[in-house]
C-alpha cells in the first residue's frame, strides 16, 4: 500500500489562531478523508476530499471552520480555523485503496490553549 505522512505531528496553539495540517501520499489516490479523534476514542469523519471538487462535510462540520484543499491526487490540507480549546484533538488523514479499504496517516496531535 502507499505511504501516507502528515505534518506537523503535533502542535500547541493559542486560542483564536489557525493551523493548517498537511497530508502527503506517495501515490495517486482518488478519495482522501479527514478525521478527528479524541485520545482513546473512535474516529469521527470531518469531510471527504476528492481532487477537483469541493470537500463534502459531515454533519456538525462546516467549511468556514475546517477549510480543506485538494490540489492534486497526492496531497491535501485541513485548516482548523479560529481555534478554541474544544478543538484539541488528534486529526488524521486517510485515503482509500480499492472499494472500501482505508489507510491512515500517523495523525496530528493538536492542543489549543
Amino acid at each position, binding site marked *: 500500500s502507499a505511504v501516507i505522512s502528515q505534518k506537523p505531528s503535533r502542535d500547541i496553539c493559542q486560542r483564536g489562531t489557525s493551523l493548517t495540517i498537511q497530508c502527503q501520499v506517495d501515490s495517486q489516490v482518488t478519495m482522501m478523508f479527514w478525521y478527528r479523534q479524541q485520545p482513546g476514542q473512535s474516529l469521527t*469523519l470531518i469531510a471527504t476530499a476528492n481532487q477537483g471538487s469541493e470537500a463534502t462535510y459531515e454533519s456538525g462540520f462546516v467549511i468556514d471552520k475546517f477549510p480543506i484543499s485538494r490540489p492534486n491526487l497526492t496531497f491535501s490540507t485541513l485548516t482548523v480555523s479560529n481555534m478554541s480549546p474544544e478543538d484539541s484533538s488528534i486529526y488524521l488523514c486517510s485515503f482509500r485503496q480499492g472499494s*472500501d479499504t482505508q489507510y491512515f496517516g500517523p495523525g496530528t496531535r493538536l492542543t489549543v490553549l
Partner: protein
Amino acid sequence: TQLLEQSPQFLSIQEGENLTVYCNSSSVFSSLQWYRQEPGEGPVLLVTVVTGGEVKKLKRLTFQFGDARKDSSLHITAAQPGDTGLYLCAGGGLGETSGSRLTFGEGTQLTVNP
C-alpha cells in the same frame, strides 16, 4: 445512533490469556475492517473481510465475518503485551453499497499485562 457497537470497550488481561472482541450492527455491510492503533500513531489496518462467514487468520489473531454480514469478531490467542492497543472495527458499504464511507465502532482498548 452508533451503527457499529463494539464490546467490550475496555479489556485488561494477563499475558497468555485469550480474548474476543465483538463488533455488532443491525445493518448489513459489504466489508468490514479491523484496525489496531497504538498511542501517537494512526490506525493500522489488520484485515478486511468481505464474504459472509469468512474467517481470516493473522498469526494469533482470528477474524470472522458473520454469515449475514452484520457482525464480526476478533479473537486473540495467548495475548502478549505487544497486542496492547485500541482495536477498531469499521464497516464499509453500508446497506450493501460498495465504495461509501466507513462506519467506525467505538473501539476496544486492550491492555495486556506481563
